[in-house]
């Protein structure tokens, strides 16, 4: 079992990607030190640990640094492989399905999510919201197939895809607030609605989710800053 000084996470409280790293560590019962970074004034440690991207999250373990949230989650799974639960399924095909959908989240869906917050004009925002809903409809379908009647995409326990999607739940609430529409609800996405509740209240998740009001304030600031900067 790692000493808490051995494992550090460099993060930022609004970041859903940082949540992924933290949830994975909690699932594996790994003690770690969390370091809140000021992204407006990045620390020497962050710049040294992630010189290519200069982003959070970064996992520091025994003097090594690992970057990119899904890569960090897989690293945690592989290092603490004897600690239950397994984050990825054991069957290679099921692993591929989890990885495929996690990649979809990062390559396609996240851009739409981000655009709902930062898009200029109603047209662009509507288009982004439609794409977010398209993604959620796909996740609703996949959830049915992958959960096989259990509470999570990973089955009895939170897994890779739960982490990949679930980290955005509070941001989704913020977007619902700003756009005055429901994205995950009992009518349109009944299974995701239940899953979201189970995920958010899971012991490995609930203490690190940001407060929705604070996140909404942050979102407004982010949008103001983004729209002021010449594109």
């Amino acid at each position, binding site marked *: 079992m790692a000493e808490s000084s051995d494992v550090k996470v460099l993060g930022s409280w609004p970041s859903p990607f940082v949540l992924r790293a933290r949830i994975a560590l909690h699932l594996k019962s790994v003690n770690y030190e969390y370091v809140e970074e000021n992204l407006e004034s990045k620390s020497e440690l962050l710049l040294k640990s992630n010189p*290519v991207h200069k982003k959070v999250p970064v996992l520091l373990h025994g003097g*090594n640094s*690992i*970057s*990119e949230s899904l*890569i*960090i989650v*897989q*690293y945690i799974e*592989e*290092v603490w492989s004897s600690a239950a639960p397994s984050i990825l399924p054991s069957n*290679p*095909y099921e*692993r*591929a399905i989890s*990885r*495929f959908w996690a*990649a*979809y989240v990062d390559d396609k869906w996240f851009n739409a999510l981000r655009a709902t917050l930062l898009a200029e004009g109603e047209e662009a925002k509507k288009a982004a919201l439609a794409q977010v809903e398209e993604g959620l409809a*796909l996740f609703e379908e996949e959830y049915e197939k992958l959960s096989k009647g259990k509470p999570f995409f990973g089955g009895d326990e939170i897994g890779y895809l739960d982490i990949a999607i679930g980290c955005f739940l509070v941001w989704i609430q913020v977007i619902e607030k700003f756009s005055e529409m429901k994205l995950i609800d009992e009518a349109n996405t009944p299974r995701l609605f239940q899953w979201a509740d189970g995920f958010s209240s899971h012991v490995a998740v609930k203490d690190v989710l940001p407060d929705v009001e604070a996140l909404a304030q942050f979102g407004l600031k982010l949008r103001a800053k983004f729209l002021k900067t010449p594109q």
Partner: protein
Amino acid sequence: MAEQVKLFKTWSTPFGLRITWALQLKGISYEAIDEDLSNKSALLLQYNPVYKKVPVLVHNGKPISESLVILEYIDETWKQNPILPEDPLERANARFWAKFSDEKLILSVWSAFTKEGKEREEAMDASLKNLKFVEEELKGKKFFGGEKIGLADIVFGWLGNLLPIFEEVSGLKLLDDRFPSLLAWTKELSELPVVKYNWPPHDKMIIKYQALYEKFHPVK
């Protein structure tokens, strides 16, 4: 059970080429199906409804899409000649650089190829900056994977043929003696039989990318 492995790709796709290399490195028998992307087969659309793209690997009727996902699947299913190392830190590093190829380097190079004026200059700067990171990672190593090729080598493979073709067609200078380790690496890579014998035909590639270049840079 008799294995049935099919690879849906096109004659030119660098992403499909990765899978060809992985399957051949592991000595896996497979059927290659070259798609015409302007007229996608019903099977392709059925196997990859989300993206409708190549490559798609179909193993005993089960489809897997996205080249990086496919590569990990192949490595986990067929254990001979591993693509990823055993050590978790080295695995994370290989995955990091694979991602860098596809999320940063390919995009900046493609922008340099397709854009004009100030946007082209910025894309060139970004591409050179990105290549410098890759050069540093490679320094002192024969391959990204060490003595044998691994995931990062397979994923960066497009630097060995597609990038020189972009350069030949557009006149852009990117992968030159500013990056000696990368140049040496492309030579080592291209000597491997699995790479040498699978490059798509050079002349056909020039025709294809010349036409594409002209589309993005119409003569006024």
